[in-house]
């Protein structure tokens, strides 16, 4: 049934690549730039004369001087020492929904009609991109069940922050802005669901889970009051459990006068199966750079698409793309808007990729995405729970959706090998390090894989085989695991340096100073 799994004799590329600054050679040039034409220079003489004396740069910046081939080589080598999704099996990177970013979408993004558009161009010259924005908005409306969408937030966190701003605007408009200053969330929701309302000035009340691992509805009832502004919750949570009483949660919060927002970072398994609006939510968001295939970029750029019900649409950031049947427009006439959360319109190229991805899949394709993500996850579960040191907390017998938080607790008790040790050791087999858990780590020795629909059966089996091998190794030769990585770019890094300000070296200049000081 399954192919025989052979563990790779992986080794990372080790270039021992110097820091760019150490490649610098006085006088080398990487690029020549256009000079002002003769007639211009004749007219004005030295450009320095055009700058008031006090503002002339006297000490040139100490930038490296490197010729072009050397720059190419340096950065290409650095890329070879980076385990992007194109290279490695990222099943372990749970909650991040690491999926394949289709190359055709990259081609489309490179076209000048995307890459070289200025955001202030006359609307008649950008009807194409406005159409993309408008139509993708329609897709997100349909997928979420909501009525209006903004692509301006540039990340999940920024979307959650914008949602928190809308909550405030909503209650303020009803004269309850000062009174309703509490946001409720759960401990297994993503940390931005607490951190962003706090950034927006709310008091944050966090609920602990009940004994079964679900958000505790009794705790919710105890927390609700006339001060409740909103519920901010991720569903399904990172445990992979869908809260079957989620609509009841929403109803209770609505009855208390609060709004409900759901963080849909974990939407990959429910696309087309269950919608935020149908559970009663007023607002939700999606990470277009996760669920909708835009590449992660090494931490962005991304897009947190924020979708809201009609009564809240007036608060969305400006501008919104409007269509009168013939032409697309940027609509700024929105007096109740919270204003802007970022410059211009957001990371529009991320929306372009989303459009193309959805247009390549359609409704049936999205359904296949969700179903395969869930099937992949359940298949992985079967393989992982057969490993002696692995356990799952909560919900015995419950089916989980797109990801699961496991625990190595049993293995750690028996061998002393921890989840962090395994996180390093697994990279010796060509796997990207897995995601353990958000903090605080309620589930001990956690790891949270998420086998999105982009992984094959072989990929999943390989991943599980590596875990099994490390489990065996932990019992027979724990030191090998604890002293990992062995096949990485470097050996173990001195992490203690992070604890003391005097030992931190954030720049090359500081690094050199510290080295010279000895």
């Amino acid at each position, binding site marked *: 049934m399954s192919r025989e799994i052979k563990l790779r004799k992986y080794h990372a590329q080790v270039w021992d690549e110097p820091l760019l600054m150490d490649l610098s050679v006085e006088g080398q040039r990487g690029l020549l730039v256009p000079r002002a034409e003769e007639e211009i220079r004749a007219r004005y003489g030295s450009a320095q004369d055009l700058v008031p004396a006090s503002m002339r*740069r006297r000490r040139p*910046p100490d930038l490296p001087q490197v010729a072009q081939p050397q720059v190419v080589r340096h950065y290409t080598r650095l890329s070879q020492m980076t385990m992007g999704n194109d290279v490695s099996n990222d099943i372990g*990177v749970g909650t991040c929904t690491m999926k394949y970013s289709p190359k055709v979408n990259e081609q489309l993004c490179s076209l000048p009609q995307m890459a070289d558009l200025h955001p202030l161009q006359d609307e008649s010259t950008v009807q194409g991109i406005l159409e993309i924005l408008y139509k993708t908005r329609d897709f997100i409306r349909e997928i979420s069940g909501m009525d209006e969408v903004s692509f301006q937030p540039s990340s999940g966190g920024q979307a959650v922050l914008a949602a928190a701003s809308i909550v405030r605007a909503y209650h303020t408009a009803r004269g309850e802005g000062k009174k309703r200053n509490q946001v409720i969330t759960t401990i297994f929701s993503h940390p931005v669901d607490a951190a962003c309302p706090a950034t927006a000035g709310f008091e944050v009340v966090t609920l602990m889970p009940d004994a079964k691992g679900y958000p505790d509805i009794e705790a919710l009832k105890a927390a609700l009051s006339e001060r409740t502004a909103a519920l901010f919750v991720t569903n399904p949570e990172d445990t992979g459990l869908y809260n079957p009483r989620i609509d009841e949660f929403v109803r209770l919060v609505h009855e208390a006068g609060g709004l409900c927002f759901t963080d849909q970072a974990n939407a990959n398994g*429910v696309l087309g199966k269950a919608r935020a609006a149908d559970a009663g939510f007023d607002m939700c968001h999606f990470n277009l750079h996760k669920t909708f295939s835009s590449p992660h970029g090494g931490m962005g750029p991304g897009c947190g698409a924020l979708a809201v019900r009609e009564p809240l649409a007036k608060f969305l950031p400006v501008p919104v793309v409007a269509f009168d049947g013939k032409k697309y427009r940027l609509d700024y006439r929105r007096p109740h808007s919270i204003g802007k959360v*970022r410059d211009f319109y957001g990371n529009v190229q991320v929306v372009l990729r989303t459009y193309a991805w959805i247009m390549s899949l359609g*409704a049936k394709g999205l359904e296949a995405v969700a179903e395969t993500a869930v099937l992949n996850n359940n298949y992985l579960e079967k393989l992982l729970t057969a490993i002696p040191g692995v356990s799952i907390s909560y919900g015995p017998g419950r089916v989980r959706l797109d990801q699961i938080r496991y625990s190595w607790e049993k293995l750690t008790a028996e061998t002393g090998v921890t989840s962090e040790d395994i996180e390093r050791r697994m990279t010796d087999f060509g796997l990207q390090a897995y995601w353990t858990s958000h903090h605080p780590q309620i589930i001990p020795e956690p790891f949270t894989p998420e086998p999105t629909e982009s992984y094959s059966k072989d990929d999943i089996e390989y991943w599980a085989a590596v875990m099994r091998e490390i489990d065996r190794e932990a019992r027979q030769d724990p030191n090998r695991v604890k002293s990992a990585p062995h096949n990485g770019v470097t050996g173990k890094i001195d992490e203690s340096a992070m604890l003391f300000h005097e030992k931190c070296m954030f720049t090359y200049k500081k690094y050199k100073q510290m080295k010279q000081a000895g």
Partner: protein
Amino acid sequence: MAQGKRIVYPYIPNSAPKSRQEMLEAVGVRDVEELYREIPERLRLKRPLNLPEPFVSERDLKRHVQEILRRNKSCEEALSFLGAGCYQHHVPAVVDTIVNRGEFLTAYYGSTYTDQGRFQAMFEYVSMLTELVGMDVAGYPMYDGSSSAGTAVRMCARITGRPEVLVPESLSPMRMKVLENYCRSSEVKALRKVAIRWDTGLLDLSDLKSKLGPTTAGLYIENPSYLGVIETQGQEMADLLHANGSLFAVGVNPMSLGVLAPPGHYGADIVTGDTQPLGVHMNYGGGACGFVAVRDVEAHIAELPPLLDSIADLEEGDGFGFNLFAWAERLSYAARENAKEYTGTSTALWSTATAVYLALMGPEGMREIGETILLKTRYARDLLAEIPGVRIPLEGAHFNEFVANFDATGRTVRRINAALLKRNIFGGKDLSKEFPRLGQSALYCVSEIHTAEDLKRLAEALKEVVR
């Protein structure tokens, strides 16, 4: 659900029937539907999503999207003088090559063991950026220039414990909108405007002095200003602010710093900005990449949004690795109980683009491009000033952008730009609604991509249009 032949999707390996079937059997279900049993029926969507028929072949998809994109006219196909926060510069081929490498493009936060290359690129970016702006420390990039400014402004309030921050009245309304949203219900209780002198475009120092007080956390200015003027009074502002116990934050266009003194050289405590001009395509505004840089003062570093890279020794042998500093609390100084911040995805890929750009340019390249821009900006200014009816209202020195006033032509900027558009020229941003006191004015942006011929063509076209 409709039966019939299931499509096998190229992006979904386990849509191949054989794999799918094997996995269903292993999991012990006959239909994937059974795996959704924890979601109550009442919450299930009982119809297919209403989405357009897809283009399942790549050829059809590409053609479809390209057709839509053809309804855009890019700045490569027209002659554009738009700036105002997003800038058209030459993006070197090497930059595009590197940021399109799959390893960088598809990485995420990774680990310091598996992604050494990415961490090194980020470390080198911070090293070069801090050199450019004359500061000591910077963290992971922010979303854009406005979120950096917002962060700086809130940092001023946190560090000084004071509630008010001063900003120049010449800030773009877009910047003000983002700042106001950022500061709502935060440590910053008031953003107060300081006048500029409408003859020179410089900040009005006497107005600043009158507004400095015990509640002033800091001043945030931009240099060059939104209107393109090079601010020359930086050191005096720094001195006034520091004497008042306030902080000095400056937003820059980093493209100017090969020729202009960086704020770190005239007393700034915090420097912010957007590195999009350095090697990032405009992407209809999606190329933004903000930064916040501070001095090596523990109390200031502790207030940065909490993601920084630090180079580190290895436990054994020489060589280096990197530590991801995700926790400002690890520093001994931390007054963060009032600091409500968050972190996550921002704009890392563009920081790699900027790093490659700066690597190619070096100090000489940055000086040369700065000089080219200075000269061309000045040339364009003078060409436009020669046109009957066109006036240049602000006297100060400019970099990259300048205001042109068309009141005496009797035409609105709107009409002028519409006419220019017919000639395939994108005229400068219409300022008439943003700054009514400037009348019918537009913000023209000139960079190294404009040749002398381009500028003469603009002047000719304007001459015709306003005749």
